[in-house]
């Protein structure tokens, strides 16, 4: 197998040197963090007043975890470590109502992020000869822009197709001889199911590789996509709080996602006891940023469940690998690549006066795509006897949900009391999608 690297020195760095580098960068990160209102208070409480108080990587354990709620409380500026004039871009988390989490980037931060993404792309064997069609959303969602800049840096021919419009995607793939795509696994399956309808044949394409991310999927799904398109598919991992894509990526050996440990300190904890776990043991992934100036984040609890593989990868990269994400340690749902919490849905529908007390969220698979069904009871006192009003109510619920969670749901209206849960804790979510 031909191996290529974007930054061979760093990517194959001896682990003892890598740890030294991590300590140096952690100290810098602590200095930056102390510039923020949020971390200044928090670190002072545990006696960290300067980077001098960090002597070894083990000192990281003294630092409390940062949660999504912490970052929400920081909104908009409490975790910003530089003057705004140095910030060249910001991204906020996808699919959140109320207060999102925000990440700021200086020019150097963007440069660092882009470099990580380029490393990922090169690790799969891509080069500047490739034509790259980016089928992820552009905008606040980091999936589109993140890969875009990494691919440009490598010199690939980038088609910023963004998500949706399957017929046009296929036409672009055919006309420009696209060799690499970036999409959610469910969208890849969706595209395949539409080939015939739109008058295409798999032989029309020159596709070689796909980068798959933004939602959990099984090894079987990967194999299925590889077989259907006769391509290699690579697993991609990222989250908006850690830039977005480029955090972890599979190399040509497809045996776990390398985490760039010169940019992130990787820890796995037991989500209940919060104790560190050994390699090979599944737990919640925790990251500390090492290469960010504007938004340093210490020990961020991702809520993603995975484990670290033991041993070295045949690609000679010394950066450790994590398994595919097997689940969440909270109740977040991932619907066609978009993150949504049941509480967000509740908040939206309960604001509508015509909606009664109970609701139920159901997830199903329809072909390759996820279907979100929101069942609500109507509020009897608001009922005026008019069917048209009910239809309008349904449209209103759909529109409100769509504008805040970016998912087009199916809304069902139910009789008052019919969705109530009589025993114990109300079960508001039914996920009927096949398990990974």
């Amino acid at each position: 197998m031909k191996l290529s690297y974007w930054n061979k020195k760093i990517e194959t760095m001896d682990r003892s040197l890598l740890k030294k580098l991590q300590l140096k960068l952690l100290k810098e990160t602590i200095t930056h963090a102390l510039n923020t209102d949020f971390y200044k208070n928090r670190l002072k409480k545990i006696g960290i007043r300067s980077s001098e108080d960090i002597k070894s990587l083990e000192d990281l354990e003294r630092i409390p975890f940062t949660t999504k709620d912490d970052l929400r409380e920081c909104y908009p500026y409490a975790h910003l470590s530089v003057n705004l004039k140095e910030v060249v871009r910001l991204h906020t988390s996808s699919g959140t109502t109320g207060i999102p989490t925000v990440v700021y980037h200086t020019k150097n931060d963007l440069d660092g992020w882009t470099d990580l993404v380029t490393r990922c792309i090169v690790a799969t064997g891509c080069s500047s000869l490739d034509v790259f069609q980016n089928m992820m959303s552009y905008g606040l969602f980091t999936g589109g822009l993140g890969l875009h800049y990494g691919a440009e840096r490598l010199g690939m021919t980038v088609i910023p197709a963004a998500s949706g419009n399957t017929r046009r995607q296929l036409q672009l793939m055919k006309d420009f001889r696209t060799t690499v795509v970036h999409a959610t696994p469910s969208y890849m399956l969706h595209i395949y199911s539409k080939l015939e309808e739109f008058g295409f044949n798999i032989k029309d394409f020159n596709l070689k590789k796909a980068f798959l991310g933004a939602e959990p999927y099984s090894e079987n799904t990967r194999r299925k996509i590889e077989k259907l398109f006769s391509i290699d598919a690579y697993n991609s991992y990222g989250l908006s709080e850690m830039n977005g894509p480029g955090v972890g990526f599979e190399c040509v050996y497809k045996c776990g996602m390398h985490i760039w440990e010169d940019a992130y300190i990787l820890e796995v904890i037991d989500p209940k006891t919060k104790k560190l776990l050994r390699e090979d043991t599944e737990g919640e992934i925790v990251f500390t940023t090492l290469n960010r100036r504007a938004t340093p984040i210490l020990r961020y609890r991702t809520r993603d469940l995975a484990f670290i593989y033991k041993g070295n990868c045949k690609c000679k990269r010394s950066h450790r690998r994590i398994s595919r994400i097997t689940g969440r340690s909270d109740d977040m749902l991932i619907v066609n690549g978009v993150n949504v919490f049941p509480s967000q849905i509740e908040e939206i529908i309960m604001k509508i006066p015509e909606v009664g007390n109970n609701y139920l969220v159901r997830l199903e698979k329809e072909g390759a795509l996820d279907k979100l069904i929101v069942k609500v009871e109507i509020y009897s006192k608001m009922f005026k006897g008019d069917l048209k009003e009910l239809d309008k109510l349904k449209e209103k619920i759909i529109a409100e949900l769509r504008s805040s969670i970016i998912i087009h749901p199916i809304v069902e209206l139910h009789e008052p009391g019919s969705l109530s849960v009589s025993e114990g804790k109300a079960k508001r979510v039914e996920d009927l999608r096949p398990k990974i």
Partner: protein
Amino acid sequence: MAKQLKIFVENKPGRLGAVTEILSKKGINIIAFTIQDIGDFGLIKLMVDKPQEAYLALADKGYACALKDVIAISVKDKPGNLYKLSSILMKYKVNIKDAFGFVLPEEKQGVCCLDIETKDLKSIKKILINSGFKILERDDLYQI
């Protein structure tokens, strides 16, 4: 005015049964009914002898229901009468939102229950009466 009771129900087996069971226990008599469905839910629409009582009985059980005014018009059962009625409404630009009709063979009477949109219900009623139609007020309706 005659009252029509509209009940929101899910479109699934047993809903008409559940509603009518409650009404039968209260000794409420149903004079006419229709069901309108638009997919996964719909309305059961009833004309009953004691509308207010029926409404309270259902609301008490948690049903989403509403009482609506409808105009009940009776006319001799013979060809052309529905045309005559609709011509008048058309002439005065009265829109019919919802309607149902039935014939009582013994009395040779037709009854039309209409949910209409008009700013001047009084005048419309007067015009209909002058054209030979009878407006059934609540008690008339329940005695037919």
